[in-house]
């Protein structure tokens, strides 16, 4: 039998705010345990939540990028359950009135263009982090209270490839909005993927499994593909799929059962009495729309209109930090293609992703721009540029490096013409050889000229001048 794959995805995304969702404690990744908390994050008796405006701004930005309807009356609810990582014994979330509903995201794969509908986007708070150490559990509450948005798709995804494309595109959009750093490996973007199979051309859903803890975009495709294989093998063999939560094991290259899903838990949701409804002014929402940063699709279009080829566009747009670097570099650059080459080549090779993201490099973009312009004007050769570049990386200025390395090219035509005269006068045999059709003669003459100029003559210009003069001296 042929089966259709049905996939829905839930994504939890940590928002890039300075402080927590409901407290003024800092949001920092990788800090010493329990140093980024206050009494609110620890659920101490008597504490109350106070909503972070920036978290709401970021949630709205995400809603806008995903074409969601925005509920301007913000309301929160309690989700009640007991767990060691949940300090209050309830999570403040938006069960009844999510800030965003009815959105979509268009993805493109080799299956063609596809619209994935977004069921809801809501705000909530993150839990603490637990480490299981032998017979103990160690808990760090630094993450507790970090603002989150949860994005839930409709079951519109039909393949592993689409699942990956969806998360990849969504992640890139959220990174462009500066809503999140989107790091799956650090857990700032976490997806739960619900997968089931059903006979083709039927409507009823099959039994689904949920895959959690996928730590990279590329593992999404692998995890989903292996789960599809596993489920279809079961169905083909006439066996049943067990409703369960599974995780993807990178080494085993397979999904592994974590726990069976028992009857659904009653979270006893009810409206959060400590947060009154918050009315967002339409003008405020409109302003967020006006201020919305450029999204990946728009940026790709802009690059295309700048004349970049599809490969460069893809390379740049995929990496926001690099693309932002490129955008600064091209302000006043003479050759955009050259700037793209350097960005995707040398820059990507020399700077780490972290350096790019944090702009923590000594290189001054203006100096790189000066060098690229010199290269474009053929004042220096690309060989020379490669010699200069390491010094620029250290933060030195282009002019300084050029002077101290004594590498600047001679492009002054009057000087070069003088040299051409000299070289031709000294090598009359080569003139004869050149006119006799011996190609090597020109190369020999250019070499002689470079030698005379101590390597500083602009080779292209020199060669052109030599040719002109040679034609004059046709016997």
């Amino acid at each position, binding site marked *: 039998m042929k089966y259709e794959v049905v996939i829905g995805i839930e994504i939890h995304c940590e928002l890039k705010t300075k402080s927590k969702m409901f407290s003024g404690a800092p949001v920092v990744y990788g800090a010493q345990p329990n140093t980024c908390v206050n009494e609110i994050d620890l659920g101490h*008796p008597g504490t*109350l939540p106070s909503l972070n405006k920036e978290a709401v701004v970021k949630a709205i930005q995400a809603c806008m990028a995903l074409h969601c309807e925005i509920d301007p009356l913000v309301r929160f609810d309690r989700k009640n359950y007991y767990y060691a990582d949940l300090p209050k014994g309830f999570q403040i979330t938006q069960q009844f009135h999510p800030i965003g509903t009815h959105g979509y995201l268009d993805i493109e794969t080799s299956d063609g263009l596809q619209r994935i509908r977004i069921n809801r986007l809501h705000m909530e708070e993150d839990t603490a982090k637990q480490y299981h150490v032998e017979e103990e559990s160690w808990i760090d509450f630094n993450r507790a209270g970090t603002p989150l948005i949860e994005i839930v798709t409709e079951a519109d995804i039909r393949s592993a490839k689409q699942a990956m494309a969806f998360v990849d595109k969504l992640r890139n959009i959220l990174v462009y909005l500066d809503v999140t750093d989107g790091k799956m490996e650090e857990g700032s973007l976490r997806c739960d993927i619900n997968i089931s199979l059903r006979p083709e051309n039927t409507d009823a859903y099959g039994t689904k499994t949920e895959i959690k803890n996928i730590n990279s975009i590329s593992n999404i495709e692998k995890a989903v593909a292996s789960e599809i294989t596993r489920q279809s093998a079961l169905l083909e063999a006439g066996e049943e799929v067990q409703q369960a939560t599974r995780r993807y094991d990178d080494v085993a290259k397979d999904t592994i059962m974590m726990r069976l899903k028992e009857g659904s838990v009653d979270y006893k949701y009810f409206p959060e009495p400590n947060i009154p409804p918050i009315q967002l002014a339409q003008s405020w929402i409109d302003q967020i729309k006006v201020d919305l940063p450029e999204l990946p699709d728009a940026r790709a279009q802009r690059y295309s209109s700048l004349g970049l080829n599809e490969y460069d566009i893809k390379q740049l747009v995929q990496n926001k930090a690099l693309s932002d670097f490129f955008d600064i570099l091209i302000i006043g650059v003479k050759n955009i293609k050259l700037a793209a080459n350097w960005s995707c080549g040398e820059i990507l090779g020399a700077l780490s992703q972290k350096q790019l993201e944090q702009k923590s490099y000594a290189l001054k973009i203006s100096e790189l721009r000066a060098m690229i312009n010199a290269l474009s004007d053929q004042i220096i050769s690309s060989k020379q540029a490669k010699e200069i570049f390491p010094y620029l990386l250290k933060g030195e200025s282009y002019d300084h490096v050029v002077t101290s390395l004594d590498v600047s090219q001679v492009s002054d035509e009057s000087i070069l013409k003088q040299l051409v005269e000299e070289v031709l006068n000294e090598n009359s045999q080569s003139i004869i050889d050149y006119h006799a059709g011996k190609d090597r003669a020109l190369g020999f003459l250019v070499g002689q000229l470079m030698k005379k100029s101590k390597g500083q003559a602009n080779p292209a210009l020199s060669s052109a001048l030599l040719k002109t003069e040679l034609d004059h001296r046709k016997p």
Partner: protein
Amino acid sequence: MSYQSIMKNISIHDRVFEALKKAHDVQPKLNAMVSFIDPTSQLEALKPKDNTLPLYGIPVVLKDLVNMKDTITTGSSKILANYVSPYDATIVKKLKEAGAIIIGKASCDTFGMGGTNKTAATGPVYNPYDLSRMSGGSSGGSAVLVASGVVPMAIGTDTGDSVRKPAAYSGIVGIKPTYGRISRYGIIPYASSLDHVGFFTNNVLDAALTLEILAGRDDLDMTSSQRPVEKYTEACVGNVSGQRFGIISNVTDAIQNKQTMRQFDDLCQKLKDQGAIITKIHLNDDLMKAMLPTYYVIANAEATANHSNLDSLRFGVQVEGKDNEAIMMASRTEGFGPLLRKRFVIGSYALFTENQEIIFRKAQKVRRLIVEDVQKALSSVDCLIAPASGNGAPLIEDSQIDLLSSEYLVAENYMAFGNFSGYPSMTVPFGFDGILPLGVNLTCRPFEEGRMLNLAQGIEDLTGLKDLICEVKP
């Protein structure tokens, strides 16, 4: 003891240490204190400050639900017996800024969940007028410490009537302003949508002054109001002429005690003589009878969730167990008394998805109807008035109450409408049931604390019942 009388003692050091000594002296009789606070560092911090601060060197007591940095805050529970607050409640900051010196924490029903103060982990609090009688609750310790002249002001909280009822039983002023008027940040909750911070004083003017200090917007409490704070002391002139009082006849009809009613009728006559307009207001009987169960459902449902943080992992008394689940189970079983466990079970029952519509949300709908009824009444009068209780404080051992009688359902529980609506409400003494004080309750429109205090002042002037102190001999 009034602010004025304590200020006669020039030395702030003496004011504070005399209060502490009294608190210790009456402790064997009243059992009102849970913990004492060494005031030395607070007195030190006060030294460079201006001695015209409104509460300069005034000793005060906090209900044991109020967090104050580096002090024990147990909520009169077992599970928080060792809890040391890492932070100050907003009102604690305000009290300190006003110059007050906090000398200890007063007993209450565990987490404010009761009306007798019999459920405190440290045992019942005794009424200074008759030590065999209860203080009332949940803010019982705070009430009797003011009534017995230990401190001139004590903080309480009021979720159903937990300030106003013990104030009535203790012959003092007890006020709960409008919901959102005083920040709840730092107060261990009972039920968030019903909880109010309130306090006790010996006279109405002290209450007005205290409210000026405690009221105001706090960004840490999103439900706190942005409205500017009035000069309540200036409003408090006692002019009742032309003011419209609505007697809640459902309550007066249900009260069986003739002595109470005679004195209440007297008071109303005197108000009339002063030019007040006295009318009878009859609220919807079915709604009045539904008040208690409505309260019970909403309060306990919210409380169940509010106390889910008590897992003994980050704070609180932990009991051994083989794994985390077992530790949590043992700690909560040990740490909550039977009354709490009962209320949590029932509160949680009301929240189950299959029960929410018929219990929790039903109660929330009835809440709205009750509030609409009260609101309608307050559109024709300026204040609703009735005895806060039919009788003086009950005996501690007395538990023979018919839970479905209208005397109980209406006369003893109606004040919760002030919590449903969030309207300001206060109790002042108006007479005696034998040797036991009686209180009259006033409820006004939202944020009309100024008007309410003025009317209360008028009543105080008419009865002359101010600065009542019931000394307790050690």
